[in-house]
């Protein structure tokens, strides 16, 4: 016979009351936002925010301009340009991070496929990507998915269509951005991301202990639901 703890049951209202009684200073929040903007490379926004919020951009903005250029290049699908820029900034980075390099090359391949340049895509894959597959078995899997796109008339509608989605570019851009920040000995993720992770972890821990409480299910919206 096991002894179970009786957990407190809490209503959404009580929960919200408790939350509202906590005070987070505006200054702290502003700093978090500034940190996010600078880390992710939103220079203009950071500048404007600095003026409007009246807080300094206390993060080192040494490579900010470069990182912005690199991110922009990727967002435009100009991967080779992005690679050239990163090689200029940190010539050892891609040599030391072959998996990251693969993702960049993969993105270039995707762009070729998007432009329907089948021959170009095949040649690129053969010349550059075969080597990646030899180095790392995980890579082979992702490579196959990418090349599979060539088999479809409308690759966007294929099972691997998400690779052609702009969010894929975003993913690669963030990965590269983080790597650059890491090499520069800066924190590679914005503090805001850490906070959200902390929130998710806390909810997970409570769930493990089978506590009933109102969950925040949608992080983007910050909605809190009734306890189930």
């Amino acid at each position, binding site marked *: 016979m096991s002894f179970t703890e009786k957990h407190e049951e809490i209503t959404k209202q009580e929960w919200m009351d408790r939350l509202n009684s906590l005070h987070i200073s505006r200054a702290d929040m502003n700093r978090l936002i500034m940190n996010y903007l600078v880390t992710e490379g939103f220079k203009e926004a950071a500048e404007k925010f600095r003026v409007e919020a009246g807080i300094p951009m206390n993060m080192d903005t040494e490579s900010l301009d470069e990182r912005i250029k690199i991110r922009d290049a990727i967002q435009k699908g100009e991967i080779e340009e992005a690679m050239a820029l990163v090689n200029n900034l940190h*010539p*050892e980075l891609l*040599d*030391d991070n*072959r998996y990251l*390099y693969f993702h960049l090359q993969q993105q270039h391949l995707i762009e070729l496929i998007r432009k329907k340049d089948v021959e170009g895509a095949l040649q690129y894959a053969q010349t550059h990507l075969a080597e990646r597959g030899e*180095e790392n078995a995980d890579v082979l899997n992702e490579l196959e998915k990418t090349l599979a796109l060539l088999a479809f008339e409308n690759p966007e509608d294929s099972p691997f269509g998400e690779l052609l989605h702009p969010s894929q570019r975003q993913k690669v851009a963030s990965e590269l951005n983080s790597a650059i920040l890491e090499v520069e000995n800066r924190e590679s993720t914005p503090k805001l991301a850490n906070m959200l992770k902390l929130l998710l972890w806390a909810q997970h821990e409570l769930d493990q202990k089978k506590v009933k409480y109102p969950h925040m299910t949608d992080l983007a919206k910050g909605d809190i639901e009734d306890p189930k």
Partner: protein
Amino acid sequence: MLMDTSDMICDTYPGEMIGREYMENLYGEDMDRVLHSVVKLKNAVIGNNKQKFHMMSLGVVGRLLEFIQNERAAVGLRTESAIVLGSLAKGSQANVKRLVDSGVVPILLQCLNNSNLKFVEGCLRCLRSIFTSQAAPVELLYTDPGVVPHMLDIVSQSPTTQECICSILAQCCKTSEHQGLLYSNGVIESLAPLLASKMYKVQMPALRVFCVITYTNQIVSSAVASATVSERPLPDLLVELCLRDKSVEMQMSSAKCLTYMCRANALSSQDSKIVYKALPTLIRMCKKDRRLEERVEGAETLAYLIEVDLELQRIASYSDHLIPTLSEFLRYPSTQTTVMDLKRLDYDMKHSYELRAAALMAFASLGANDEDIRKKIIETENLMDHVVCGLSDPVIRVRLAAVRCLHSLSRSVQQLRTSFQDHAVWKPLMKLLQNADDDMLTVASSTLCNLLLEFSPSKEPMLESGAVDLLCDLTKRDDPALRLNGIWALMNMAFQVETKNMAFQAEQKVKSQILVALGTDQLFKLLSDPDVNVLMKTLGLLRNLLSNKPHIDHIMGMHGQQIMQAIVLILEGEHTIEVKEQTLCILANISDGTTAKDFIMANDDVLKKITNYMIHANVRLQIAATFCISNLVWNEEEGALERQMKLRDMGVQKLLQQLLSSSDTVLFDKVKTALQQFT
């Protein structure tokens, strides 16, 4: 990170055409276009091992070196060229070797004198990649004596110079000469501040440098111990780097550095930094949850740290379940092992012998001096079985470690009588002694010595496995340590315990076998050995051979003449009191024999010497001489009267009466006994 993809020579390499194009463009007149081509080349080789190999085959290195060496070339071109070389150095190991063979290193080292920081950084990165690879041409760093001092001069210019120079120095400091060179060029002052750097990739290589320069170097270790960083003592900073919030490699390196400083006598072994920080850190590194290479390094460093300090051995023996943890090393892989991934498992299986060797070394250190610790080790379940297994391990490193371990444990008299009897250490130990190199021979024969002291019942199998011949061979070696072990072991073998229990008597057979195998020539050669320890043990052997009546008569019967000759030689020679005492004891033994007595009585010279020693300044010699006389005049023996007469005539009785006034009780008793024999 260097990849190890094998280079494939590809005739139909798709990039080939492009490669040739790149090469052509490097030979243009228009320097701007040339620069542009170098940058394109750079982008082509970064991340692509095949492209690196391919371009090198086309001879790109030579052309790039031309740019780099050309003082009149634009610094931008020179820098980009260095960066390309840097990328080539991040290819396969074979690639790096080819780079080195192309003469890249001396040129880049020379370029460090340039004033442009970016250019210097480019060169340093390439050098760092080369020197941290397997093909590192360490000696090239020292060819030009100006290089190392200059590096230490420029080290603090930027994080890149810091990181690269520290990495290079950490890999290239291999000898005490290197240590001395770095020290005299101010390595400590230059690099100490870097230990407090906020950048891990600077801190870690700097720490490694401190490890390599302090190893077995007292001068450097002392200097490091008294160095400061922002007015804090450097050792305190090292302690901080041992803390658990640091990476494992950082904890290990700082503990190692403290260890080296302690062994080099720059830090006391009782210093709290050692006892409460370095030691526990190393013990922690041995835990199950650490990777194999970390556990090996932890155990080996631990063995080194406590090797010569009893207090540390004691503390370690009861710390944090160390002994059970180390025993697990010997059982690896066991049912307790969790499989993480296949690649890891494969590596671990191939390297499990390192775990065994490390554990055995640690046990050897732990059990070196303390009986309780030895007991604890031996009583650990199945441990002795593993040690014995280790003696026949296929890997020599493990065998040597097992012998060292056995050697430590064999210092326990109690264990000798009990557990070694249960474990068949003989066969594997004997096997090790055949075809052993000098290191192994020294430790193994020392161990044999110890084992022979008590382990009398098993002398039969020892004889059968050729121990005597082996030991006799040892006595012929140039190395006095080996000769000593050989003769000492033989001495122990011939030792006879005066006891009613027949089992503990060395058989006549054993003694004869020793004499025959050794040969009187070798025996007498050893009696004039330049090493006094060897001489003492040889005398000891002789004494043991002549330790009971039948043996004495038998041996003197065969070799009496030569033995007496040797004895005279020693008594007449320049020797320590201990040696003379041993010799006189041998005479006393001889005089205990029946027929053997005649050898002494017939030799006036010897008799005269004995009487002289009776009145020697050193009482131990007096005692031994008197003992001899006592045996000679013993009135229960046949022919006592004649002997007494002769000795009385020589004035011995008078001398004895004189000695009655001695204040030494032992001497007094012997003298009294002797006088009582006279009728």
